[in-house]
Every structure is written in C-alpha cells, then in structure tokens.
C-alpha cells in the first residue's frame, strides 16, 4: 500500500516536469538501475538500489551483517574441526612412532639388566621386512640386523633370522616373548625390553655360551643346538600360567635354540 502511494506521487511529480526533463530523468534512472550494482562492485560503495529506494526491497546495508556472522561462525567451526583433526593426526603419528620404537627412548641399547616389572604390550609387526624399524644410516632392521635378502636377516654374531615358524618368520616368532601370555599353559619366558634389546641380548647369550662363560651351556639335540647363558641381572620374568601362579619371578637366563645358523627360538628361562 505504501509503495503504491509512493509510485503514484512520483508519477504525479513527473507530470509536473516538462517532457524533455522527464525523459532525461527516466534515462538517468535507467542508467542508475543498470550501473548501481556494478559501481558498488567496482568501487566498493554501497549505493542503494532503486527498489530499496522505492520501498519494495530492504536496503542491502541491513542484510550484510548476517552473512558476515555466518562466515565468521563457519570459519570458527572449520578451525575447530581442522584443529581436532590436526590434534588427532599428531596423536596417531605419535602412537605409530611409539609402536615402532617401543620403549627404545627410555632404555639403553645394552643387553644388560632391565626392570623386572611385567610388560603388557609389544609391537605387532605384520612382516619383519616391511614394518620393522630400520636404521636410516645403514638400513639395518631393528638397528642391528643386516638384510641378507629373501627375507633373511643376520645379527652381528652371525645368527640368521629367516622365514619359518607358525608366525611365518622367526622374528615374529620370538616377538611373542616380548609380552606375557598369562592364560598359556606352562611357563612362558618374557623378555623385558624392546625388540632391539631382545636381539642384542640373544646375540650376547649366544656369544657367552660359545665362549663357555660362567653359567652358560651348549647342548646338541637332533640337529639343533640349545645355547644358554646367565646374565648378571634379570632380563625378564616368568610368564604364562606357571609364571602367574608363581607371581612372575624375575629371570636371568636366556635360552637360544639354533639350527645351523638359523635361530629357531629364544626366550628368557629360569
């Protein structure tokens, strides 16, 4: 109703103006209608549209604040989401790093005594060659094993870890001794350390038994040789159902079963 009254009054005003000036005003009006949005866009001005001047449309200046708030809130939301993703990604990365370097940071590489407290987790590598941490300097598996090819790895003492066992690879097999299996019948020797420390300790036990060191032995059995060496301090604890029943006593001995140069298994024993 109001806009119709305004339009009528504008037409009456035009009737009072001479025809020549009325044509000029109409041309200017059309020019303004066509150019107003572009001028606003080019020069950043905020000229009102003809429709808003007539009253059919609300001025754009009143509309602008709302979308700005929405953009701000969207930006904040996206920041929050991306922040969470970033946090989660970094958490995941650190978890992966922890899994591949289990306990390495807090321990020395010496094969000597470790804390005798039972440990609950160990890295689960799908395939030794693919997932085992490699030393970037010389590409050694777990920092000490030399790649011989065909998925076989040699320790500094000449012990070879290759395909075999129920797990598919001897490294995966001996990895079972990095964690307890309390429900497994009988004893289950658990090494208290990470894979690198375990491999170093196996090498050391093998060398000690070969040299006939005190508390060591070497027994041949049907093509296999069972090496045993006693360390000065505990290297692990007794797990399995026997260990659970006996409250996981600390173990100082390491037993290594070797066929030829190939390690069949190795674990701490009483």
């Amino acid at each position, binding site marked *: 109703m109001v806009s119709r009254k305004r339009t009528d009054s504008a037409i009456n005003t035009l009737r009072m103006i001479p025809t020549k000036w009325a044509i000029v005003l109409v041309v200017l009006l059309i020019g303004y209608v066509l150019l107003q949005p572009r001028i606003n866009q080019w020069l950043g001005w905020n000229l009102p549209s003809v429709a808003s001047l007539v009253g059919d449309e609300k001025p754009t200046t009143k509309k602008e604040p709302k979308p700005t708030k929405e953009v701000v809130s969207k930006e904040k939301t996206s920041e929050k989401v991306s922040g969470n993703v970033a946090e989660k990604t970094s958490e995941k990365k650190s978890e992966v790093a922890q899994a591949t370097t289990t306990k390495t940071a807090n321990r020395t590489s010496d094969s000597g005594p470790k804390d005798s407290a039972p440990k609950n987790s160990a890295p689960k590598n799908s395939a030794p060659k693919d997932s085992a941490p490699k030393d970037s300097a010389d590409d050694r598996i777990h920092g000490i094993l030399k790649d011989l090819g065909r998925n076989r790895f040699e320790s500094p003492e000449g012990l070879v870890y290759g395909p075999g066992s*129920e797990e598919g690879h001897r490294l995966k097999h001996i990895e079972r001794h990095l964690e307890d299996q309390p429900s*497994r019948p009988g004893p289950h020797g658990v090494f208290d350390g990470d894979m690198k420390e375990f491999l170093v300790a196996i090498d050391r036990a093998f060398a000690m038994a070969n040299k006939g060191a005190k508390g060591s032995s070497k027994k041949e059995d*049907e093509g296999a040789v069972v090496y045993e060496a006693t360390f000065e301090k505990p290297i692990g604890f007794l797990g399995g159902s026997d260990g659970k029943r006996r409250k996981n006593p600390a173990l100082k001995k390491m037993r290594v079963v070797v066929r030829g140069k*190939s390690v069949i298994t190795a674990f701490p024993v009483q």
Partner: protein
Amino acid sequence: MTSPLIYVESCPICGDGLCRIRICVTNQRLTGLVLCDECEAMWTDPSMQERIESSSSETEPSCPTCNQSLWGEQSHWASIGEVCLLGWFDRVRIAKV
C-alpha cells in the same frame, strides 16, 4: 574369543614350548605327530618316546610322510575331532587360551 589349545605336555627339550598335535594332510592322507610350538622338536606320538629326526640344514620342521614343511598350507594344529581320529584323545590336555 577363546579357542581350545590341545597339548601333551611342556616341551622337555626347550622347557618353554608346548608339545602339540600337528596334522599334515597330503593326498587325502592324514599324518599326526607331536610338535613343540617353540623349538619345533618332534615326536611320533603322544607317548613321546620316539623322536623324529631333522637335519641341521632344515630351517623348518617337515612331515615324515610327505617331507613338506609342517608350517605349510597343508598342515595345521589338530582339532579335537582329529585327535579322536588319531586315537590320542586320552593322551592330551585341553586348555582354553
């Protein structure tokens, strides 16, 4: 989920393994033997009187019947049914792991 673990006794050779019943199936012929799951020492039956020899050059235990690896696809740990089939059920222990 727990699964039954069938074994005869703890391994007298390595002291840490369990002597379990291993089955090898080749040409529809089933061979059963006792195998330590730790040091891979082998016996012909649960009486564990007779050892199955393997050479030092072998890095995997092999079936005395077909000479294939006992870690091959044709081989597996015995089920209770297979232990019964071999007539060894009264010689084994069963644990839930």
